[in-house]
């Protein structure tokens, strides 16, 4: 426990950073991620419940982010988690990485710049010549007053836009020093040049100043930049929270035989771990006790449980079904994925990172066009029309100002933030910023079977062939057990009586004496049933000397699986099933879904090969899967989704994670993705149209500051309103 305490408190202190240096060393700040708290009562319950303890000095729960910050002396995160769980919430330690706090700092910086730019806009716009003409009447002002106001505007506009535009200047400099001209280069040029030009005009006492354009440019572009950062931060935050939620506790047997609760991340090879029935193993290891049934569906896709003998290997992600089991860990958590799968995941992610976002593609076309146009305008005026140097440069700058990509900068981020926000409310978490763009391109959907098309719960499947008395009698025993198969029988039978004096033989079954007879419900070899139907999952019931009755189980299809596949087909996305399960089980599902093409017995590597083959045919594959055996395929596919019940590996590899028992989020996400793609393209069209009109006007030298300002604001407004049109279908229930 001691090593753990030090380790955790060090990292927590690192995260608390500044705060800690100001206070004595014993004072600690611990951050926990809390799940399930949504209202004022939850805040009160958490804060009052925790501040009762002596070592807690201050508690603050942030409802917006779900983070609980606790200050106190020698706090132990594990003890805190236990206390939060006692209050009825799920908690896990949260350690912000350096990248995250840098992002947070970046967001604050942008917001501060936005506030300054907003101040500038509110001041400069009402005072410029163009606006004054509207609300004061030019005639009222003598030239001296106009000059004074002009200089006041300059005094406000220059510092505010130069201070507020720092994010663009920095990014432009970074781009230039790397030898590339990014979108921020023309932006920075437009801001600096319009200020310089306006100052020059002010000195000449001319009315043609562009101060308002410079300030408004900065303001509108900062809004786009801020939205973009929020989308990306929300996505990475969602991904991190998923990882943090997976930080499970395990019980380790120490050398002195004492059970110690530790974080799964602190398991070392050689540790002995106790797994209770129903728990998922966080690490690879060898089994130290005989006969437990293991559900390996997340690892292999095989739906029937396997029975493991002492000394056999157990992979991370396997679930212990019936009896507690002692595991000798052979690897730490981070090394516990089968090495092959881990390598495949990494390879897939590298391929995917080559995807170029729509906005970047637009910018790549935009930047050279603007620079060349501005240069051409200058050359044309100076050399061919023999205008003065000042007029030529003024018109070239006017081109730079009016083409400044306000609408372009807002087009994609505004759509993204509306779309991801709407999906989030439906329990669909988008984990990477460009996932929706890639999803919009998908034309083939590949589904895993176990846990994806089917639920992760076993249900009684041969109910029709059993008579009423069989089910009623089995339930008499089954209601006493927490074994998943027994519970499936109890669910079918409904509420009812329980037999007296039931004994549970671990790993075998249940036994009781009913009406003088010995009744047994359990494994075939223990009850005395025939093992002919060994391929499926079974329980047997024997009443006294009667012939035993067989109960068969299988994981049923998710309720809307068939509907989902037909909805996808309507959207020209064809579906297939790739499963690691036996062929008869997969065939049954394939038929139930109306003859979907399927492959069975497919290992992780073959799944990757199948996806590569589809990709070679020019398809964009949407992979939906939940198992560790799917993780590599999920990371390699064009875009991927996994249910929230999926293995840790699958959730980390997937782009989108959805909650709930239904598959309808797949269709909803596709719809939203396609809609947002359409909205983004429409927005680009608006921006292009605007430029097609504005550039010739600017090049001819007839864009007055007023026209530039109106055009800029209205195109940005159109783009934003268009983004808000995204419609998210409601959940069916």
């Amino acid at each position, binding site marked *: 426990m001691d090593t753990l305490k030090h380790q955790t408190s060090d990292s927590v202190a690192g995260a608390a950073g500044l705060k800690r240096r100001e206070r004595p060393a014993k004072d600690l700040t611990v951050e926990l991620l809390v799940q399930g708290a949504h209202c004022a009562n939850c*805040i009160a319950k958490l804060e009052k419940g925790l501040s009762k303890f002596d070592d807690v000095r201050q508690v603050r*729960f*942030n409802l917006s982010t779900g983070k609980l910050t606790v200050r106190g002396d020698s706090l132990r995160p594990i003890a805190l988690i236990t206390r939060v769980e006692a209050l009825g919430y799920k908690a896990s330690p949260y350690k912000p990485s350096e990248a995250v706090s840098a992002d947070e700092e970046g967001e*604050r910086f942008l917001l*501060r710049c936005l*506030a300054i730019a907003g*101040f500038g806009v*509110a001041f400069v716009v009402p*005072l410029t010549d163009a606006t004054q003409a509207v609300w004061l009447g030019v005639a009222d002002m003598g030239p001296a007053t106009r000059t004074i106001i002009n200089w*006041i505007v300059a005094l406000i506009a220059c510092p505010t836009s130069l201070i507020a535009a720092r994010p663009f200047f920095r990014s432009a400099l970074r781009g230039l020093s790397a030898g590339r001209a990014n979108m921020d280069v023309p932006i920075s040029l437009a801001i600096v040049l319009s200020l310089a030009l306006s100052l020059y005009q002010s000195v000449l006492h001319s009315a043609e100043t562009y101060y308002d354009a410079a300030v408004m440019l900065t303001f509108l572009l900062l809004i786009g930049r801020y939205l973009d950062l929020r989308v990306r931060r929300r996505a990475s935050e969602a991904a991190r929270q998923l990882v943090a939620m997976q930080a499970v506790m395990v019980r380790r047997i120490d050398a002195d035989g004492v059970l110690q609760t530790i974080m799964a991340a602190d398991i070392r090879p050689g540790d002995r771990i106790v797994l209770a029935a129903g728990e998922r193993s966080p690490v690879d290891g060898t089994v130290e006790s005989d006969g437990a049934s293991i559900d390996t569906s997340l690892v292999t896709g095989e739906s029937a449980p396997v029975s493991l003998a002492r000394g056999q290997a157990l992979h991370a992600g396997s679930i212990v079904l019936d009896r507690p089991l002692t595991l000798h860990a052979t690897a730490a958590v981070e090394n516990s994925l089968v090495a092959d799968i881990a390598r495949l995941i990494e390879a897939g992610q590298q391929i995917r990172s080559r995807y170029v976002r729509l906005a970047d593609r637009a910018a790549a076309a935009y930047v050279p066009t603007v620079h060349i146009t501005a240069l051409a305008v200058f050359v044309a005026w100076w050399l061919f029309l023999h205008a003065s140097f000042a007029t030529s440069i003024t018109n070239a700058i006017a081109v730079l100002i009016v083409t400044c990509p306000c609408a372009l900068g807002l087009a994609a981020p505004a759509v993204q933030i509306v779309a991801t926000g709407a999906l989030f409310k439906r329990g669909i978490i988008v984990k990477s910023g460009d996932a929706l763009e890639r999803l919009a391109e998908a034309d083939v959907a590949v589904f895993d079977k176990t846990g994806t098309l089917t639920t992760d719960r076993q249900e009684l499947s041969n109910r029709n062939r059993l008579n009423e008395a069989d089910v009623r009698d089995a339930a008499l025993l089954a209601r006493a057990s927490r074994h998943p198969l027994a519970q499936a029988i109890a669910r079918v039978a409904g509420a009812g009586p329980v037999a007296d004096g039931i004994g549970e033989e671990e790993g075998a079954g249940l036994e009781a004496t009913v009406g003088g007879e010995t009744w047994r419900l359990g494994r075939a070899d223990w009850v005395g049933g025939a093992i002919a139907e060994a391929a499926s999952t079974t329980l047997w019931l024997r009443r006294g000397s009667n012939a035993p009755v067989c109960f068969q189980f299988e994981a049923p299809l998710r309720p809307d699986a068939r509907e989902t596949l037909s909805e996808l087909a309507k959207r020209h996305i064809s579906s297939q099933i790739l499963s690691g399960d036996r062929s008869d089980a997969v065939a049954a599902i394939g038929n139930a879904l109306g003859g979907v093409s399927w492959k069975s017995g497919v290992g992780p590597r073959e799944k990757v090969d199948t996806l590569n083959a589809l990709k070679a045919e020019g398809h964009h594959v949407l992979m939906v899967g939940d198992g560790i055996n799917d993780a590599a395929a999920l990371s390699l596919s064009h875009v991927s989704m996994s249910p929230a019940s999926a293995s840790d590996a699958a959730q980390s590899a997937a782009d989108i994670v959805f909650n709930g028992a239904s598959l309808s989020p797949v269709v909803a996400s596709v719809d939203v993705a396609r809609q947002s793609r359409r909205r983004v393209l429409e927005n680009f069209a608006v921006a292009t149209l605007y430029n097609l009109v504005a550039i010739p006007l600017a090049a001819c030298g007839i864009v007055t500051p007023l026209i530039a300002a109106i055009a800029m604001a209205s195109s940005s407004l159109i783009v934003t309103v268009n983004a808000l049109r995204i419609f998210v279908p409601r959940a069916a229930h």
Partner: protein
Amino acid sequence: MGLILAAAFLIGVCALAVLLWAMSSGQYDDPEGDAARILLDDDEE
């Protein structure tokens, strides 16, 4: 005219300063939580 401008400028700067102060003192950190906290009864211990 000059006086009005100066007054408006000062008011604007004050508003900007207040906004920047509110941001740096964490008043925008948890908008949802602040909305919910108003419902809590502090007196009852």
